[in-house]
């Protein structure tokens, strides 16, 4: 009987925890400033104000990131001329792993390297990958948790919406 009670206790505690949800809603707020260590130069995130920015946090070990790169290349090609850019911040602790990933899946958009994870701390990332859409005024408007191939069309609509503002 003691066994059954203990088991019921575990199930009850678990049930209680099940109802916590991760709140990912982003109220419009200015995008926190970042120093970007790009491949060939250094820049600030605020330098991109006036453009719609798709800020993506990725790493070589993150499997959905492998599916997001071809799509991000496509978005860059389609909307780059209209004042849109992807900025992908790499969080690998070893630069070598990021370079190997980029050799297999080349990026046609700016890539920044943050091995210490400072930008991830600033943006309080809750998962990998995480991406934010920043409007022309420099405000965070949309947050995406993970990369889901079936949500690609919706992501593209969001970009078009912000470009039209």
């Amino acid at each position, binding site marked *: 009987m003691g066994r059954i009670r203990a088991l019921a206790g575990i199930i009850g505690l678990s049930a209680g925890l099940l109802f916590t949800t991760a709140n990912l809603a982003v109220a419009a707020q200015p995008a926190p400033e970042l120093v970007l260590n790009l491949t060939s130069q250094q820049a600030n995130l605020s330098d991109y104000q006036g453009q719609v920015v798709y800020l993506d946090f990725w790493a070589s070990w993150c499997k959905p990131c492998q599916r997001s790169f071809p799509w991000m290349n496509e978005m860059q090609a389609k909307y780059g001329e209209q004042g849109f850019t992807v900025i992908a911040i790499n969080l690998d602790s070893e630069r070598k792993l990021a370079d190997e990933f980029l050799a297999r899946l080349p990026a046609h958009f700016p890539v920044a390297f943050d091995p210490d994870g400072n930008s991830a701390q600033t943006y309080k990332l*809750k998962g990998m990958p995480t991406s934010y859409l920043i409007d022309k005024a420099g405000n965070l408007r949309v947050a995406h948790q*993970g990369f889901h191939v079936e949500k690609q069309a919706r992501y593209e609509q969001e970009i078009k919406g912000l470009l039209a503002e």
Partner: protein
Amino acid sequence: MQLTNKGSVATALAGAACALLGTPAAQAEEDMLKDWKFDTAILYYGETDRVSLVEGVINASKTNDDDSLFNVKLVIDTLTGASANGAVAQPYAQTFSRPSGKDGYVVNAGDTPLDDTFRDTRVQVSSSWMQPFADTWRATGAVNVSTEYDYLSLGLSGLLEKDLFMRNTTLSAGLSFQFDSIDPVGGTPDALTSMLTPTYIGDDNDEGEDEFEWDDDYEEGENKTGSESKTTTDLIVGVTQVINRRMLMQFNYGLSVVDGYMTDPYKLVSVVDGAGMTQDVIYEDRPDSRTKHSFFWQTKYALDSGVVDVSYRFATDDWEIDSHTIDSRFRFNLGDNNYIQPHLRYYQQSAAEFYRPFLNQNDPMPMYASADYRVGEMTAYTVGLKYGHKMENGHEWAVRAEYYQQDPKNAGFDEPGVLADLDLYPSVKAVILQFNYHF
């Protein structure tokens, strides 16, 4: 237009064929973006003087756009060789009838009686579907079917998983139902009734085969009926926890309730007199219900170049079998494309409450009795080594060689008369060889 590389089964198989021939695949498929993945293996298990098994596995999984996962697995194995039939050795030759009842076999003096009737092929198909939903939940449903000439097994299971605390913690709960039907060759023997002992009359016939004679009163299959069945209901609840950047732990509690026929219809128990001489050989019988509890704990630790994986399992049940299992694998990466992995396992179990290496003629007949060493007291250990290599085209192969030894022990039974001079608990020694291919 999607730029993702969907890949195709045909291309993957062609790649595998090219890799096996030693030439690089014409189109090196990027392993990363492939949706279908295949794992194949072939295993040989061989015990010294006893059972041998060859088993082949093909496992295919497909990851879909919504991250759901479909898995299908095919297993085929063939078993040959001899297993201990449960009777005790004697200082003279013994004859036994085969399960079919129409034939017999002779066991030499001093030898552990082994029945070499079993030549069996088994086919198993299983399939599962994992569906993620509501961001942190996963639900999995699985079916499996296994069939061999005297045994059919049908199973259904479900598993629910929930991630918490930024996916540092995962809770899981699963339920499984299995229905097994056994149709023994010759029929199911009546519990604890005598095996018909044939008389050996020589091997003078044209083929040089052993010939046997049966008692005039013998009516074939008179103490054997038809088929039997059992159901197994399993519940498993678990917690997986990330400890730190290098370490992961899992803790599972499992409850298993089995109801139905669990006796081995081919196993025997010898009834001996005060001098240890066999007077009768009867069919074993086990209880028709069994409730098992298991507590499983596993840790995986990431080294700079490798992984240490250690697990401990404690199991206890109402047959009074308690067991401890420690299983460990140490993976050492050699560069980016090779690894070696030593494997060490230690297992110890206590005897079932109804385990008897033999029965004493003068004692009252117990309700249940089995002399099968697999429900007796024993320790077992496995030592092995695996070597794996990843090829340029992303495919991987590995080889594994292991040695498995089981040491049955005397669970505290006196050995009267002649039995004291015989080895009643021989060790079983086996070699395991396996080849894997992943593409």
